[in-house]
């Protein structure tokens, strides 16, 4: 079989080269879009080609190395790429959805003056994501990890004139940075314990070293490492403790939100846990924690999405809750279904974001859904794609979303966590409700704003392809099944089988009833006001972190602005000046005082002698 490693090496490097070309060259807009979209599209073709080749074999591994990075005593790290079914799926998603979004944003960003800067950042992002996904050691993964964080910071703060965007970008970067630092500490611990950072070696060595040492294979060191890696994953995938940066990250252009905050970057956390699944097997309590975090986050996201008024924030909170589902799946040990849901989610969430983008593009930057209405006839393509997206999101039967979410719910039951199952069901109900609410409010009812600009051809093309994918994309990739653990889901009771299928219909009818009785836009009754506000602000995590971390830190720094150590040196300065004054007082020119000074010396010396005598 011919060696495809050079082809694999091209995958992350192509977008990098095109980013550099764009950075240093002065090309017209047409050429910029050709380079940008071309490079990502070619990577997509390569990944499809690789998919076709490796379709039959279930466990294949393709590696290639781009050169050594650091090799000191034990720490020898090189730019190694590692392709196996998991990373094949990931690069297909990243490059596929990435290419579509690039195509879409050529139309969306056409009038923007910083066209070149936008596509440079976007290409840089894609190459960083590909490095992250293909890295064979944790340090290169960390490089991709931070690179992705950097590009998301740059893209969120793309329209830098507006103060709000910059603050959102800073917030996003810092929150993910906290997670990254936790992950870095995890890396240090892994290196000191196992002596290597190569991912495959870690899995093997972890099993060899830790599982033997103690009996109930709940080794503290293993769970500590997994906990730290989980910290990184939680930071990047906007899970419970570090999730309130994602809704603010909507300040960036919408294709950016589609690419980064729906399809690719936020899934990095899931990829990290999936990639180190053997390591996580050694720490069942951490796995349970992952499941718990997943459940709480999905409930938080879904409930918050129900009460939002801003179109993009609804989608942001829905992303958080869908990611919660993936974490839940990972937590109960159903890695394959998590990645499968990740794939389908990438398709329909990208579709929803792009459609929302088209909406905002045509309603001259209006975000509030209650100001839109009755756009079904005016923007048919957008409406249809939006409908398909909402259907997939609500996991109506035979959409891509349905297959992946049902699989997750089945796995949760099979793993015996019935409590978590009921929470997941409640989350599914909320999801179906808010997606229906979203669709009815935006597209049905009286038209308030009339769209002025039609989405361009490239935007509609991207929307159509994505709609097709989110309808028929629900094919479970073969290679994933045996790479990661899978639980057999046949022993389900009828209730557990049929409830998830019927649930979306109940939620949609409830939403239809509320829409018909015009209760959606109305202000909430007074006693519910507090709860409504609490849920709307994402369970007040922003306020919580502001009071616990940000303002004390700011106050502490402000208090110490004068650098109290410097005050210590200024004090020395003052005392020496005062001492100078004191001594020069003696110099008052009186001759009799000078004579006295001689006599004083005699007296003092004699007194010292007597003191010496008395002491003996």
């Amino acid at each position, binding site marked *: 079989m011919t060696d495809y490693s050079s082809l694999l090496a091209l995958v992350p490097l192509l977008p990098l080269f095109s980013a550099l070309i764009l950075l240093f060259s002065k090309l017209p807009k047409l050429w910029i879009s050709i380079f940008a979209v071309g490079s990502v599209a070619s990577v997509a073709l390569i990944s499809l080609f690789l998919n076709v080749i490796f379709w039959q074999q279930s466990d294949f591994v393709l590696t290639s190395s781009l050169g050594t990075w650091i090799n*000191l005593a034990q720490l020898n790290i090189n730019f190694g790429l590692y392709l196996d079914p998991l990373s094949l799926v990931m690069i297909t998603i990243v490059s596929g959805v990435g290419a579509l979004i690039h195509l879409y944003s050529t139309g969306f960003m056409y009038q923007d003056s910083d066209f070149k800067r936008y596509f440079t950042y976007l290409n840089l992002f894609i190459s960083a994501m590909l490095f992250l996904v293909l890295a064979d050691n944790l*340090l290169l993964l960390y490089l991709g990890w931070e690179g992705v964080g950097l590009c998301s910071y740059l893209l969120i703060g793309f329209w830098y004139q507006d103060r709000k965007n910059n603050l959102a970008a800073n917030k996003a970067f810092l929150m993910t*940075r906290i997670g990254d630092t936790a992950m870095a500490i995890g890396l240090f611990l892994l290196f000191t314990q196992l002596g290597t950072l190569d991912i495959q070696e870690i899995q093997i060595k972890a099993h060899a070293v830790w599982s033997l040492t103690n009996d109930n294979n709940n080794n503290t060191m293993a769970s500590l490492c997994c906990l730290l890696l989980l910290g990184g994953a939680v930071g990047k995938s906007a899970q419970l403790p570090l999730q309130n940066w994602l809704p603010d990250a909507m300040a960036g252009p919408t294709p950016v939100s589609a690419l980064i905050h729906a399809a690719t970057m936020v899934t990095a956390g899931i990829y990290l846990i999936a990639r180190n699944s053997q390591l996580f097997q050694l720490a069942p309590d951490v796995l349970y924690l992952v499941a718990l975090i997943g459940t709480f986050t999905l409930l938080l996201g879904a409930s918050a999405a129900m009460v939002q008024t801003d179109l993009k924030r609804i989608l942001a909170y829905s992303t958080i809750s869908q990611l919660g589902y993936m974490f839940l799946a990972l937590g109960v040990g159903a890695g394959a279904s998590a990645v499968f849901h990740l794939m389908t989610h990438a398709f329909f969430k990208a579709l929803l974001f792009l459609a929302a983008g088209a909406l905002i593009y045509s309603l001259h930057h209006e975000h509030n859904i209650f100001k839109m209405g009755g756009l079904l006839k005016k923007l048919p393509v957008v409406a249809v794609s939006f409908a398909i997206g909402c259907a997939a999101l609500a996991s109506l039967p035979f959409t891509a979303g349905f297959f992946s979410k049902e699989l997750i719910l089945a796995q949760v039951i099979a793993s015996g966590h019935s409590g978590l199952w009921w929470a997941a069901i409640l989350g599914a109900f909320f999801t179906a409700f808010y997606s229906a609410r979203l669709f009815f409010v935006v597209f049905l009812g009286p038209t308030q704003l009339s769209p002025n600009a039609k989405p361009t051809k490239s935007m509609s093309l991207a929307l159509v392809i994505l709609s097709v994918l989110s309808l028929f994309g629900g094919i479970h990739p073969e290679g994933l099944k045996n790479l990661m653990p899978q639980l057999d889901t046949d022993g389900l009771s009828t209730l557990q089988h049929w409830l998830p299928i019927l649930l979306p219909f109940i939620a949609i009818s409830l939403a239809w009833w509320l829409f018909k009785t015009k209760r959606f836009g109305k202000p909430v009754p007074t006693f519910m006001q507090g709860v409504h506000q609490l849920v709307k602000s994402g369970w007040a995590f922003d306020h919580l972190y502001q009071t616990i971390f940000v303002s004390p830190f700011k106050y502490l720094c402000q208090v110490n*602005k004068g650098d109290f150590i410097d005050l210590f040196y200024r004090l020395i300065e003052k005392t020496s000046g005062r001492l100078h004054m004191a001594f020069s007082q003696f110099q008052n020119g009186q001759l009799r005082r000078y004579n006295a000074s001689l006599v004083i010396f005699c007296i003092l010396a004699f007194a010292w002698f007597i003191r010496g005598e008395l002491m003996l």
Partner: protein
Amino acid sequence: MTLFILLLMPLLGGLLAWYSERFDAGLPKKIALLSLLLCWLPLIPLLSSMPFDASSLPRSQWLIDESYPWIPFFNINAHLALDGLSLLLILLTLLMGLVALSSAWHEITKRTGLFYLNLLWTLAGVLGVFLAIDLFLFFVFWEVMLVPMYFLISIWGYEQRHYAAVKFFIFTQAGGLLMLISLCALVGIHYQQTGILTFDYLILIQNPISGDLAFWVALGFTIAFLVKLPALPFHSWLADAHTQAPTAASIILAAVLLKTGGYGIIRFVLPLFPQASIQLAPFMMLLGVIGIIYGAMMAFVQTDLKRLVAYSSVSHMGFVLLGCFAFNIYALQGAVMQMLAHGISTSALFVLVGMIQHRYHTRDLNELGGLWLNLPKLSAFGLFFGIASLGMPGLGNFVAEFLILIGSFAQYPKLTILAASGLILAAVYSLLLIYKTFFGQTKRPHDSKIADTNTKEWCTLISMCFILIYLGLHPQPFFDLVPITLMKLSFIADDIGALL
């Protein structure tokens, strides 16, 4: 003789530059440039013969070793020697000399001859510090490099230049005097123990002294280097010196003078007092960590751009201190790498601050803002170097900080976790720097005559970007250069294991 030529070149160049001011105002900077370029000549044969593959290490630690008798009575001789560590730092010095020269090209207009004299003499002093192997000669260069820097700050500085220059001089001088006493004590004890009166580092290193007096002597040396490194209790001179110094002087100060502290610890404190430095290690690492956090917190609230960058270098050098006293090969290589990477990224930031000050005549963050609109190229560089200083992987700072942290994690995990929080704080102030200067609304009407970067500035900055990226992606040749010096130190680590 090559090392002495290397030292004499800037000295003579400086004198010539000062003398040539009589004939034409533009001449001094050309002569300064010429003499700096000539300094590279003695190194070229060395660099070309340097085997850059990791396999063949240079046979002995010292690449060039020259010694001439100086004061026979005390057995002091002018002993200069070059090994991997000092070669790296000398390359950094010469490079930063060129960068300082380029930034002072248009900025300094009055008394240029004297300016270039002082600039070149500071560089000569620093080259001397990196080359001197005789402890007395090292001390002489240590003090002598301060005098021209003092003049640089006090003549061409900004509003409070005299206060800042005197504070800088007295701080380092106090440390220097302490070092002089510990130097004499070291030689005295060595003489008592072995009967050889010598100031030569190579002989002193053979039988390091131990005992409680050795602890105090080691402390004397370390405090002198901590003052220069700006570790925490002695750091307050740095902010004033940087804010009041002209751009070229603060580049030399940031890039090179701070490194003499780190170099001193690695070269003198660790090998000469293994016992004492093991006892000192926990306190110094704690000091390093507090320095990281304190520096970052201070940088966060500064309104003056230069003070912000100055406090950020306090935080970065806290990492070097952490790395030096962690006693294993990763941390020490990381410390050396951090010195290089910090040298480049901070001086690049100072070049940018100089360019902003040259154009807008202000360093106050509240008045700056929205530079990206009018000066896209300059702001792009600012973004790059701001990101580099917060430790973005793929650039030099990350590799250094990662190695330091991974090295010190083996010794003191809890301390390293605290230091790792420094990474977050680094992101806090770097983003603040980028946001306050380059993004947001412009607070002043844009007048078209303020030009973006001219070609000279563009070349210096782009070359510094490439060096940082090269450091970040391919640091191996730098690791191969200094293995032997650091190998010795990490041997100490092995018997530390037995101790702790």
